[in-house]
C-alpha cells in the first residue's frame, strides 16, 4: 500500500481548491484514468439497464460459448452471459472499494484527531493498539476476520474496513499533530477558542489532504482484497457475480475456456491501475509529498 507523507496544510485551505483542480487537470494520465473510472462507475450504476442478460440466470443451451454477437464476451459453465456478470460485478467491486474505506475513515479520523490532539495516555494507548493491528498484514487480518465472521460480501467489506482502520488512524494522528504545530492554531488558541472548536474547525479541516490521498489509494487495495476474498470463496456468495468469484469459476475451466479468466482480471487491473494513477495525480496536485 502506498504511503502518503504528512505535511502541514495551510490555514483555512479547502480540500479541493481551484489551484489544486487546475493542477490535477494538467496531469493528463490522471485525467484519462479519472474518465475511465467514471465510465466504470456509470456502468455499475446503470447495470440493470445496460446488461444484456440477467447475470444469474443459467441457460444450459448456451454453456461455455466463445464470444459471439449474442454474447460479446461468451458465456460461463452455466450458460450465464459473461458481459452481464462483468457489468454487475463492477457494482460489487466499486462498492467493496468505497464502503470499507468510508467505514475506516468514520472510525479512524475522529480517533486519530483525538490521539493527536489529546496526546498523553490516550495517544499512547491508541497508538500501541494501532501498532499491534498494523503488525498483522492487511490480507491476513481481512481473511482472519472474514473467517470468524463468516463468508459473505457484507462481512468481507466489514473485515476490509476494520483492517484499514489502523492505516488511517496512524495517518490522521500524524496529520493532526503536524497541523497543530502551525502558527494559526496557536493564534486560534490565543484568540480564546475552545479546544473542541479548534479541533473540529481548524485541525480537522486542515489535516484532511493526506488522508484524502491515502483514501483514494486504499480504495484500490480494498478492491483487490475483496476480489481476493471472493476468489478464495470468502466474499460474494454464488450465484451473484463479482470479479473475484468469476476468476475463481474461470480457474476451473482454464484449459477448455481460457477467455473466461481474461475479462474479470482485466477489469480489476484497469480499475486498480486507474485509481493508482488518479491517486498519484491528486498527490501531485495537492503537492503534500514535496511541500516540506
Amino acid at each position: 500500500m502506498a504511503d502518503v507523507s504528512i505535511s502541514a496544510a495551510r490555514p483555512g485551505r479547502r480540500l479541493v481548491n481551484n489551484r489544486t483542480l487546475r493542477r490535477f487537470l494538467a496531469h493528463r494520465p490522471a485525467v484519462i484514468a479519472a474518465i475511465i473510472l467514471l465510465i466504470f462507475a456509470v456502468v455499475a450504476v446503470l447495470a440493470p439497464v445496460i446488461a444484456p442478460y440477467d447475470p444469474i440466470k443459467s441457460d444450459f443451451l448456451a454453456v461455455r460459448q466463445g464470444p459471439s454477437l449474442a454474447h460479446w464476451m461468451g458465456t460461463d459453465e452455466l450458460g450465464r452471459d459473461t458481459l452481464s456478470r462483468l457489468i454487475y460485478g463492477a457494482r460489487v467491486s466499486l462498492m467493496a472499494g468505497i464502503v470499507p474505506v468510508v467505514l475506516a475513515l468514520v472510525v479512524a479520523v475522529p480517533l486519530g484527531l483525538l490521539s493527536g490532539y489529546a496526546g498523553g495516555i490516550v495517544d499512547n494507548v491508541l497508538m500501541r493498539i494501532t501498532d499491534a493491528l498494523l503488525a498483522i498484514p492487511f490480507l491476513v487480518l481481512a481473511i482472519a476476520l472474514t473467517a470468524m465472521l463468516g463468508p459473505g460480501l457484507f462481512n468481507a467489506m466489514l473485515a476490509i474496513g476494520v483492517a484499514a482502520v489502523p492505516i488511517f488512524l496512524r495517518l490522521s494522528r500524524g496529520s493532526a499533530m503536524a497541523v497543530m504545530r502551525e502558527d494559526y492554531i496557536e493564534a486560534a488558541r490565543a484568540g480564546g477558542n475552545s479546544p473542541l472548536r479548534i479541533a473540529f474547525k481548524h485541525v480537522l479541516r486542515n489535516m484532511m489532504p493526506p488522508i484524502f490521498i491515502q483514501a483514494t489509494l486504499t480504495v484500490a487495495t480494498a478492491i483487490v482484497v475483496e476480489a481476493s476474498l471472493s476468489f478464495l470463496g470468502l466474499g460474494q456468495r454464488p450465484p451473484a457475480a463479482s470479479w473475484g468469484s468469476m476468476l475463481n469459476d474461470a480457474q476451473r475451466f482454464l484449459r477448455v475456456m481460457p477467455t473466461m479468466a481474461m475479462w474479470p482480471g482485466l477489469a480489476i487491473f484497469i480499475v486498480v491501475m486507474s485509481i493508482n494513477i488518479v491517486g498519484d495525480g491528486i498527490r501531485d496536485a495537492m503537492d503534500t509529498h514535496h511541500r516540506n
Partner: protein
Amino acid sequence: MALGWYILRRLGSIIPTLILVSVIVFALQQLIPGDPAVAIAGDELNEQAIQEIRTKYGFDQPIYVQYFKWIGNVTTGDFGESYRNKVEVADLILQKLPVTIQLATFAMIVALVVGIPAGILAATCKQNAVGTAANILALSGISIPHFWLGIMMILIFSVNLGILPASGYVPPWEDLRQNIVSLIMPSIVLGTGVAGVITRHTRGAMLQVLSSDYVRTARAKGLAERVVVSKHALKNALIPVITLSTIEFGQLLSGAILTEQIFSIPGFGKLIVDSVFNREYAVVQGVVLVTATIFILLNFLADILYFVVNPRMRSAHG
C-alpha cells in the same frame, strides 16, 4: 554502545506490541457468531462432542482465564491441536513455514533483480521513453491482481506452451532442479508487486541523491555519468531500498496466500485458507500470530539495519 542501547530500546517497544497482537488474535475467536464449540464441531452436531470441545478448549471458563491459558501455552510453543487432523498446530506451522519462506525468498530475488535496475533507469532516463516504460512497468506491477497474473501465466506457460508446471511443489531435498522449476512462476507472480514498489522507491531515492551536493561535486570533477551513478549515487540510494526490502519480505509472506492457492503450493498461505474452510480456528489463530510476530521482527531488523548503515542515526543516538 549506541547500537546496543538502540536495540534494547526497540526491543522494549516490541514486547507490548507483541502482547497486544496476542490479545487481538485471541479476540478474533470471540467474533465467531454463536457458540464456538458448535462452529468447530461443524456437522458433528451431537451434544457430547460439543461438550468435549467446550471442555478441551476451555470455552466454559471466563474469557480472561481462556486468554491466559492460551498465551501461557503459546509461549511454550503449544498453539493447540488441529481438531480434524489431530495434529499439533505448531507442527503444521513448522512443516509449512519453510515452504513459504523459500517462495518469498525467490520472489524477493525476482523483485530486487527487476526493481533496482528498473528504478535506476526510471531515475536516470526520466526524460525519455526508457524512463516512462520503467514507470509504467512499476505501476502495472503494483496494480495487477496477482491471482489473475498467476492464472494468465499458467494459461501461457503451462496450458499453451507446456514448459512450466501449472501447480505442485517438490521439496529441494527430493529434487533440487524440480524444486526450482516448480517455483519459477509462483516467484514471478509473487515478486511482481514488490518489484513495482522497489522500482518506485529506488527511483525516488536515486532522484534525491542525484540532486545532492556531493553528486554535483563528483560531476564537476569530470567523472563520467556512469561512474557517478554506479559509484556515488547508487550506494546511498540503496540504503532505504535495503531496509524497505526487509519490510516487504513480510508482505511477501502474506501475499503468498493467494499465490500458494493458485499453484497448489503446500505452504503457510494455503494452510490458513484450508483452515478457514475447515473451521480450524486454532490453526488460523496460530498462523496469524506467527505471521504478525515475523512481521514485527522484520520491522525490527529493518530499523537495526537502517541504524547500522545510516551514520546520521548513529550520531543522533550516540
